[in-house]
């Protein structure tokens, strides 16, 4: 029974790993192709199936006047906007989630669950209709085509996720921990920062990762709300998507844009394994 399950486990995990990696390998191979290698049928191995070229990669560092798009500045812009928006969202979201987990709210018939649901229901709305009002709003505030304008919009998009996830995680932290701290003489704010928060690191890390992912990969709002001063990475990459889809440069771009998040994934995994809650009570 044990070995059967173990073999099953390894087989399943290997199969899924292959499914996960396959598109990336294809993207890697395609990033070295040119028009002819792509249009004469599927090709795979460089030098064996087709003549590789660095064109797909070089295009990402050239200016449009030379047929490319320089992704360095958009890259940095994206990093800034994503990190700042995620930080603010986690900060405000965690505080709000703690309140919703520990305290009871009642305003008429609106209770805790309703407030939590209010937060997450902001994610339901299809973004399309919000294009014009957000455009008008940022226009009036003078925040169009600015990094801060984007951060503001992203906080609205990301905070609900932080709240939703942290409520669940706070619910798992036993109330006894809070009570112990309070008995020890802390006020609720101190109790939160000193005792509860350190025990919710796994939750915060997970929420943080999701915020960063949704911020980094957003295209729609970055597209509508920026022009020349600020360009985020997805918009910059998509500006290569002309009538003839450049399979090669888009593949290179996809690989390049996933890279920073992989680094974050490593960090997340480390915190996940470390912050195991089961021993927290003692």
């Amino acid at each position, binding site marked *: *029974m044990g070995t059967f399950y173990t073999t099953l486990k*390894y087989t399943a*995990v290997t199969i899924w*790993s292959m499914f996960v990696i396959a*598109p990336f390998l*294809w993207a890697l191979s395609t990033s070295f192709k040119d028009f002819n290698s792509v*249009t004469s*049928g*599927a090709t*795979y191995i460089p030098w064996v199936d087709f003549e590789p070229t660095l064109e797909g990669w070089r295009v990402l560092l050239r200016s449009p006047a030379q047929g490319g798009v320089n992704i360095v500045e958009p890259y940095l812009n994206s990093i800034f906007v994503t990190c700042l928006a995620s930080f603010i969202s986690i900060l405000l*979201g965690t505080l*709000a989630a*703690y*309140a919703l987990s*520990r*305290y009871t*709210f009642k305003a008429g018939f609106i209770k805790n669950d309703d*407030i939590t*649901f209010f*937060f*997450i*229901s902001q*994610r*339901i*709305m*299809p973004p*399309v*209709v919000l*294009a*014009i*009002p957000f455009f008008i*709003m940022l226009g009036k505030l003078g925040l169009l085509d600015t990094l801060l304008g984007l951060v503001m919009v992203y*906080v*609205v998009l990301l905070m609900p996720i932080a709240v939703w*996830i942290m409520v*669940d*995680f706070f619910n*798992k932290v036993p109330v006894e921990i809070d009570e112990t701290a309070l008995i020890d003489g802390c*006020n*609720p*704010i101190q109790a939160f920062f000193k005792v509860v928060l350190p025990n919710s690191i*796994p*939750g915060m890390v*997970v929420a943080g*990762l999701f915020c960063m992912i949704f911020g980094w*990969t957003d*295209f729609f709002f970055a597209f509508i709300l920026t022009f020349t001063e600020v360009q985020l990475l*997805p918009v910059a*990459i*998509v500006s290569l998507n002309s009538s003839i889809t450049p399979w090669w440069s*888009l593949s290179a771009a*996809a690989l390049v*844009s*996933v890279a920073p998040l992989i680094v974050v*994934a490593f960090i997340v*995994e480390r915190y*996940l*394994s470390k912050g195991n*809650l*089961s021993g927290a009570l003692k």
Partner: protein
Amino acid sequence: MNFKHKYLFLLPGFLVLLGILIFPIGFTVRLSLSSWDSFFPGLDFIGLENYTRLFTDDPRFWEAFQRLSFMSVITVFLQYTIGFALAHMVWKEIKFQRFFRVLFLIPMMTTPVIMTVIWKTVFHESLGPVNFFFSLFGVTPLWLSSEALSKVTVIIVEVWQWTPFMFLLLLAGLLSLPKEPFLAASIDGAGPIRKFVYVTFPLMAPISIGAIIIRLIEASKIMDTVYVLTSGGPGTSSETSSFYIFIKGLREFQFGYSAALSLTYLIIMIISLTIIAKMLVKLMIRS
């Protein structure tokens, strides 16, 4: 519990959200009562005409909704089961645990707008590797251009992209489970299957429900995948509500109508999700 503190925690986030959102949401409601168009931009007032139109004269929207429900339920179900299985498998001792855990996270970190183009090339019926593989068996499945298969392709891409989301949430949940119930179960002589059914699964119920709800919300907004892969085709067979709303809004610029569609969609989703959440609670939290 002090009266003041609870507001201190809740209000910053709540007020910031409300403050930024109040104009856009209010504008959208007002927009849905106007006939803002590509040719007549402006907030004229036409009352509930948009809503009448969408309830009596727009079968396409409702068909799209049906398709959406079908596809999102299947996708989320697959993502949940596969995600849970994977999380369970890399939870305890396994070789290369770190590698697998990080690897399984990567698909959701790709930018959908770009990744779907890559998927399009993968599934390209004439020039892609998938059909090259199938052609060795003499078949050429029409991944993007047949009515049935186009939905399957969209589901495959969605499962690839978002299973990591479930995987991560559930793994985090598993890692924070207390040890006591498991020890107790072992003492009672329970094997791995019984442990799972009676200890793991019920303990994971709250986070499972949270994960499913949020995935349902996100899955329903599915846009880039449909737009890039099939344009809602062939015909309208892979068109979803969000795709339809997008076309009406940013392509045809019927913003007034699109706003009405969005608000209706929002309300239907809120009602459905509340019902689904209650159902899940009954289903899962039931020792």
